[in-house]
């Protein structure tokens, strides 16, 4: 099942709620649902705020799939590729030197247990796995 996401920050909350409703219906626990919510919010915010659209728009959509071990959230877009799984995360500077961004990638990588990205024929796909047995979320 999937849901289109508008290029509007105001649609992130409803999209996260859509995924959380499905996670709750699948019997996924609150801590994993928290991890799903934070990763999906970060992924969508990154696309809407920072990604460069190709001609035709960003065409963002989110998918949800549950299995016996947890859940997978997939985010599709038609932006210029930006691989969040390999982009370096800058070290934390002092408060005075701190830039406003940069936390999203760190949170995405911490709260998901599996992360993969591919770009094919102008469409990008970010898959985020949430399986407590894999370790990072409990």
């Amino acid at each position, binding site marked *: 099942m999937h849901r289109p996401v508008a290029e509007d920050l105001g649609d992130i909350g409803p999209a996260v709620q859509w995924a959380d409703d499905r996670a709750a219906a699948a019997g996924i626990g609150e801590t994993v649902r928290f991890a799903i919510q934070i990763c999906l919010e970060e992924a969508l*915010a990154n696309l809407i705020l920072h990604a460069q659209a190709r001609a035709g728009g960003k065409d963002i959509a989110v998918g949800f799939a549950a299995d016996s071990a947890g859940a997978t959230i997939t985010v599709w877009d038609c932006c210029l590729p930006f691989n969040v799984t390999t982009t370096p995360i800058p070290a934390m500077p002092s408060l005075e030197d701190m830039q406003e961004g940069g936390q*999203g990638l760190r*949170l995405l990588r911490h709260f998901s247990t599996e992360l993969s990205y591919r770009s094919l024929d102008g469409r990008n796909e970010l898959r985020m796995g949430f399986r407590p047995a894999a370790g990072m979320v409990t």
Partner: protein
Amino acid sequence: MELTVEDMPGGITRAVLAGRLDIAGASSVDLKFSVLAGSKKALVVDLAAVSFVASMGLRTLLLCARTMTAKGGRMALASPQPIVDQVLQTSGIGTLIGVYPTLDAAIAALAG
């Protein structure tokens, strides 16, 4: 996202947040935090009733702390729920802004 502000003894201000500090929540309190950052000397942000925080919410807290520090003020975060504390520590914000397990500990840190 709800924000209530209370002036306490010793020149310390307590800002109590309640709800989700997500994109929508952060945008609803950004302006109020800007006002607090510009007008207060010592600020404790009580996170006990915050159930969720993401990077836009962290940005709100960071900007406030940075503004206060630049003008000689101090800010501390108090009583985060365990999962919210995990976000604070993972993001690194916890190394830049003091995070204390109780309101009393945060007040003592600012008063000290």
